[in-house]
């Protein structure tokens, strides 16, 4: 027995659409399809998709780096984490590297303040970050095959 019709759960549909996309985003066509499936207007579904920070309507990198800049992480030096990442990746927050490998995002608290400063890359948590640690992580990911 299901609590409700999964077909009508817009947020679950959006998550699925984004997961299936190679570039971590939801295309306009997909949005239209989801609107149809859920029996909503395009603008309603657009409104939902743009509300939640985990969704993107722009193509993003293979790896989404989300660095926390809320209180505890800020206090423990998250600004220097952003600096190293921007320098290493040669992009600013909100941008994607030209090779389509990395997107850098700023996020609110991730609930891993016991490991501040912290970030997530896709579904993996990285805590107690230092500039050296960041360089090592990036090197590992760069060497990984597509």
């Amino acid at each position, binding site marked *: 027995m299901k609590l409700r019709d999964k077909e009508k759960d817009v947020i679950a549909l959006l998550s699925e659409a984004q997961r299936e996309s190679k570039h971590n985003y939801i295309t306009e066509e997909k949005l239209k399809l989801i609107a149809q499936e859920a029996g909503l207007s395009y603008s309603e579904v657009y409104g*939902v998709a743009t509300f939640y920070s985990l*969704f993107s309507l722009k193509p993003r990198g293979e790896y989404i780096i989300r660095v926390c800049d809320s209180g505890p992480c800020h206090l423990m030096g998250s600004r220097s984490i952003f600096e190293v990442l921007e320098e290493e990746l040669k992009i600013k927050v909100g941008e994607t590297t030209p090779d389509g490998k990395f997107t850098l995002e700023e996020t609110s608290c991730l609930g891993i*303040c016991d490991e501040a400063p912290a970030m997530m890359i896709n579904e993996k948590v990285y805590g107690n970050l230092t500039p050296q640690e960041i360089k090592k992580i990036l090197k590992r990911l760069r060497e990984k095959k597509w």
Partner: protein
Amino acid sequence: MVKELKSPVRIVLENCGKINPESIEEYIAQGGYKAVNRVLQEMKPEEVINEIKASGLQGRGGAAFPTGLKWEFTSRAKDTPRYIICNADEGEPGTFKDRPILEGDPHKIIEGMIIAGYAVGAHYGYIYIRGEYILSINRFQKALEQAEEHRFLGEDILESGFNFQIEIHQGAGSYVCGEETALMDSIEGKRGNPRFKPPFPPSSGLWKKPTVINNVETLANIAPIILKGADWFRGFGTKECPGTKVYAVSGHVKEVGVVEAPMGITLRKIINEYAGGMRQGKFKMAQVGGTAGAILGEDMLDVSLDYASLKRKGLVLGSGAILVMDETTCCVDMLKCFLNFFKRECCGKCVPGRIGTEKLLEITTSISQGKGKEDDIDLILQTAKVMQKASLCALGQSPILPISTILKYFKEEFIEHIKGRCPTGVCKI
């Protein structure tokens, strides 16, 4: 795993780190699901509600509303079906106290939800877990499957005739969705905009039906209260705020982590006895209750950290997050960080929230750059006051608390910035 400091009492965190969270057998061996058994076999729904009322348990999500009363209101609502929601959105900065329970003892939450369902006559439950808590989601999913296999969930639970099932809903990255009505809109598949209250969830909640929404930590207290009784529970904490609290300590202390302690422990004790003292520098301030919480200075080190005592001082315990800051911290820089959070997470539905959060950040940023004007300090206070009165939800109503308290202690530091100097050297002027 979340780091746990040496807790003086363990009610909520009892099993965390002790049992394999992916094994229902280990949970049962610790007395797990005995409370569900007792409730279904021996107690009437009213008796369950009365026991929770007698315990004095208050919501641990921040608002401290009496849990038993919330259940009673919902049980008396005419409309059906009724719903139980567990709020596992944990988005308040500095708060990581629900995660150890989600990751370390998911069955305890399930047990609390089943008992809540029985008490108010609900057959459906949702747990709204923030999308970033991947391990929590996976562990909870596994726990649900095990509970179903053992017939603690599903139809005719333990041959009692009572049906209950739980579904996970994943958040998609939004702080304001932790606000109960926004959370309900989010489960309904909409933008997570807070609703105007009243009506309150016990009469009109999820899909406009009577709904109990409780925080993870609140629900984790239910099974122990049922098994050991309201009087036992009242043996912990203060008269007004019984039980324990899981405090999440972060910042400039030697040991960061969660600590479960009797409600009413002091900040000094938490820092010195459990967090190993300050890391290097001298204590400057602590923010208690998350970014929406107040700044406490040295004179507050001995205040009792419970809902009632803090409320009398115009402060809040909120989620129980404690961010400790030493002398190297710049007040203006930290306030800017807090305001950046409010601006980013504001849903934009109401004007005071939308424009107010933007303006507060703008003015504070200009102060941090040495471009502030003398009346800017009054301007932030006034703006935050208007927001407190006119905003739709607590997000817009909150900035006044960190702003007014940080200014109470460190107004001089703001004036220094306006004069063109950052005393700690953090801001580049």
